[in-house]
């Protein structure tokens, strides 16, 4: 599982980029919807700010939340939707019976996830700068741990989703789109954790994304200090824990799928 040959990873990345670049549906999915989100919610919050109903940093919080949530969403989607696309095009069997390791397969989807997330972040940040005077670079070096933490969370969420699809087949495919949005309300993307009911707050503090978004708001309010650093360190530790658990879970699900024949059923 841990052997990774870069030429094979490159081969899969090359294929993903060709497939993506020729699919208007996927390009739309990756660029169009995030841009629409940014336009609609950005203007809504600008309107509230102008009409005096919202304090000024709220626009930044919302725009930052939209941009950074897309990092997580793209990273998760790159893994689970790439897997589903191979299933739908009946190509997965040819991949699974080639001498590619699971680590190589997953690495390629990680690379694609990074590329998609970076692209979407650049586009959205430019737009946010032009439309809402949102300066993503005001977060200085904190940008890197914010981005990386969400990327890693997207990776383990994507791997976990794929594990369920492997084990339960097509009936689990809706998870590929649903999982990030299931976590969104308790990740405090657009509002502070303190807004949530106590029980949900307890759940929220178990998610790395919560620390990232709390940290982002703290930084945007000028609090680039030890509190923000602590948030990001906690996010990293939770990510490390969940990523390790997900890798083990994926291995077990793959093994179960081989035992129960569900791997053969979905790829054939």
């Amino acid at each position, binding site marked *: 599982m841990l*052997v990774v*040959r870069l*030429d*094979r990873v*490159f*081969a*899969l990345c*090359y*294929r993903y980029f*060709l*497939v993506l670049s*020729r*699919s208007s549906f996927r390009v739309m999915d990756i660029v169009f919807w995030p841009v629409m989100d940014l336009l609609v919610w950005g203007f809504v919050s600008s309107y509230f700010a102008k009409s005096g109903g919202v304090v000024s940093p709220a626009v930044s919080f919302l725009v930052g939340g939209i941009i950074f949530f897309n990092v997580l969403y793209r990273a998760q989607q790159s893994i689970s939707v790439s897997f589903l*696309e191979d299933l739908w*095009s*009946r*190509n997965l*069997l*040819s*991949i*699974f*019976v*080639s*001498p*590619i*390791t699971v680590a190589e397969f997953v690495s390629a989807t990680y690379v694609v996830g990074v590329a998609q997330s970076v692209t979407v972040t650049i586009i959205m940040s430019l737009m946010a700068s032009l439309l809402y005077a949102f300066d993503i670079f005001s977060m200085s070096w904190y940008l890197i741990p914010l981005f990386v933490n969400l990327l890693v969370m997207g990776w383990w969420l994507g791997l976990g989703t794929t594990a369920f699809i492997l084990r339960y087949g097509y009936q689990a495919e809706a998870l590929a789109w649903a999982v990030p949005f299931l976590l969104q309300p308790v990740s405090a993307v657009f509002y502070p954790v303190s807004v949530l009911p106590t029980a949900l707050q307890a759940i929220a503090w178990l998610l790395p994304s919560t620390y990232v978004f709390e940290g982002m708001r703290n930084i945007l309010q000028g609090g680039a200090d030890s509190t923000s650093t602590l948030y990001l360190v906690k996010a990293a530790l939770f990510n490390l824990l969940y990523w390790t658990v997900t890798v083990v879970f994926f291995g077990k699900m793959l*093994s179960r799928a*081989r*035992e*129960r*024949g569900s*791997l*053969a059923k979905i*790829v*054939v």
Partner: protein
Amino acid sequence: MVELVDIIEVENLAKRFDNSVAIQDVSFTIKKGEFVGLLGSNGAGKSTTIQILLGLITPSAGKVRIFGLSPWKERVQVLARTNFSSAYVAMPPNLKVIENLEVFARLYGVRDRKAKIQELMSLFGIEQLSQKMTGALSSGESTRVNLCKALLNDPELLLLDEPTASLDPDIADKVRNLLKQVQKERALTVVYTSHNMIDVEELCQRVLFLHQGRIIAQGTPAELVANLGEESLEEVFISIARDRVRLPHSQQ
């Protein structure tokens, strides 16, 4: 002269799914350079056997060795020397044929990819398709592109799952001739499943008949026809599928 070493060794293989038995007590060996047909009606256990050989399913019991290696523990080494083609798999439709073959050549670590792809496209007479989108190919063209992909790594073992399914008789005949030629030239070991008995009679040196998860007959197509007192392999197939035959002990 073909070296008579066992490429595939299967011993007492069994696979159970929940309460059903897919295969039981299946044993066979396939030697280097053999072209072996795996036959049986739907649900006989052919697909399960092929999927076990490909490492997609782990057996409930029994032993499988391919090139003397385990298809699960030494999966990458086994698959690097094996390839597979099926009428039921496809490649991404919005990639050109040449791009799809290039990707698989990279996955199999083929050296001098361009020359190898060119050689195989020329062998299968599909050079003119290289810039065509894979999704726009006809069934016959798709089959030949899939066979190109299946030979990219100069495999020692080729698993073919109904490669001529959905082809018209003319194209099916051309594909059979190409397979015969390739197998002979490269001393390939081929495991072949098909419901087309013309394919099997023309191509397979030996046939393993599966019925209700067990191998119930094996031999050359001519031996099976003679021993079961039927007129053709198709009739042998039907008799076995309908439980009309009681096989002599030597055939079991």
